[in-house]
Each structure stands twice: as C-alpha cells, then as structure tokens.
C-alpha cells in the first residue's frame, strides 16, 4: 500500500483526526482499536454465510428479509452499526446495490468496499444503465429479468441475497457459503 500516505486525501483525513483528538472527542488509540477490530473481522465470508443459511433454512430467510439486523445477529454479527436491508433475487428480478451520493456499504458483512464501487463511473451509470454495467462485469441477464437498483441514500445498508445455483442440493453449509462471492452480494455477479 505504498504511496497512500502521500495522497492529499490522506493528509486531509489526518488533519480531521487531529482536530477531533484536539477537541477531546477521540484519541489515536481509540481510532486504531476501532479500525483494527473492523478490518480483522470485516469480510465477505460473513455475508456469504448468511446467504447460504437463507438458502437452506426458510425461517432464517424470513428473518433475514424482514429484519436484516436480527438476521446478522443470529449468525453472530450482532454489532452492526447500521440498519441492514437484504433484497432477494428471484427468477424474475435481479437486484444491484449502489450509493450514488457517496459510497455507503455494509463493510462488516462484505469487507472493505472495492475501488470500483466508489468510482464515479459505477455510481453514476448503475442507476442509469444497469444492464450495460452488469454486462461489463460479465453478468448478462436475460431480457425478461427485471433489474431493481437500490440506491443507499439513508442510514440503511443493502445486501443482495443471490439465487441458489442449480445442482447444489447435496452441498453443506460451508460449501454453499463458498459459492457466494462479494460481487454476488452487491449484485454485480449472479452468485
């Protein structure tokens, strides 16, 4: 990660930290502790485990779709700092997540967001021409599948529940979770 310290935005972030510390609102130790905790536990494996369980446990699926925070807590992720809404793909509808205003993202369940998610191109084009954007990710959807774009403009963070792939009936929870990718949970991949 060489060179990031030299970026103007890094200097601005540090100035902001210094102001907050000077005001007595936080400390370097507190910031380090928070970031360490976040980035050692934040991973798309978390969201993948939730999706895989929803594929095999109808009661859990109902919970996850009606109350995402409770669904996350049920799988051991009880410390979400945001509201969570999980939107399920169906045979007729494919969901995709974007944040046009900034880059809102459920970091603790999906890991640090990819660079493209924060790019101006993804943020502006996904609400305008999602079918073309998804095709560039290698996901060409049949014309009859409607695309539902979710713009994360509020306190809620979004996650897609992908469709369970055909031919996976014999797989266990770990194997099923292993099929689910970060992009599948954003909606830029089928699974």
């Amino acid at each position, binding site marked *: 990660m060489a060179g990031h310290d030299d970026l103007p935005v890094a200097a601005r972030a540090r100035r902001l930290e210094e102001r907050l510390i000077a005001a007595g609102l936080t400390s370097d130790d507190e910031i380090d502790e928070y970031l360490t905790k976040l980035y050692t536990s934040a991973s798309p494996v978390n969201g993948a485990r939730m999706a895989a369980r929803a594929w095999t446990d109808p009661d859990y699926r109902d919970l996850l779709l009606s109350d995402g925070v409770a669904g996350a807590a049920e799988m051991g992720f009880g410390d979400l700092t945001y*509201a969570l*809404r999980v939107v399920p793909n169906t045979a007729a509808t494919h969901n995709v997540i974007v944040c*046009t*205003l900034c880059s809102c993202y459920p970091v603790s369940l999906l890991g640090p967001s990819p660079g493209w998610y924060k790019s101006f191109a993804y943020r502006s084009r996904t*609400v*305008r*021409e*999602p*079918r073309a954007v998804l095709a560039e990710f290698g996901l060409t959807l049949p014309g009859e599948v*409607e*695309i*539902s*774009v*979710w*713009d*994360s*403009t*509020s*306190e*809620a963070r979004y996650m897609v529940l992908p469709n369970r792939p055909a031919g996976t009936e014999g797989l266990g929870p770990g194997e099923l979770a292993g099929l689910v990718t970060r992009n599948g949970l954003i909606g830029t991949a089928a699974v």
Partner: protein
Amino acid sequence: MTYEPGARVRVKPGDPDHHTRVPGYVRGHTGTVIGAIDQWPVPDDSARGIDPPRDETCYAVRFSAADLWGSGDHTVTVDLWESYLGRP
C-alpha cells in the same frame, strides 16, 4: 406514518443550499412508496447542527427508469425522508 405502501409521492424539486440526501436525479420525479424503513434524524438538520434535528420516517420509494431518464426497463429504489416528499 403518512404514506402507505403503494402511495404515489413526488420528490420536492429544488436544490437546497445546505447538505441533503436527496439525489439530484429524483428531484421533482414521482415514484411509489415500497414501505417505511425506519425513523431517523433528518440529515439536512444534523448537518446544519440543528438541535434537536427532526426525527422522521424514511421511506423506500421506487422509480421507473423510463420516468427518470426517458428510457430503460429497470427500476431504481431510493430511501427518502418524509419531508423530502409530497403528494403528486
């Protein structure tokens, strides 16, 4: 809760001088309420240091691409606080 699921709502037009969480591309457009998500402080108030900020219902509102852009067969769902909305 003022708006029931299925209600048609119009996003208030205009570009405020202060911070807001209304994306420019839905301003003035009419959509359909999918449901109320939760109740949260209005970001426009929080960002301006208004204490206490208004605490309002936030709705998921769905727009058709054809209405927003004049073309496209998809939908876009945007979370909007109650004071961002009015009857069409």
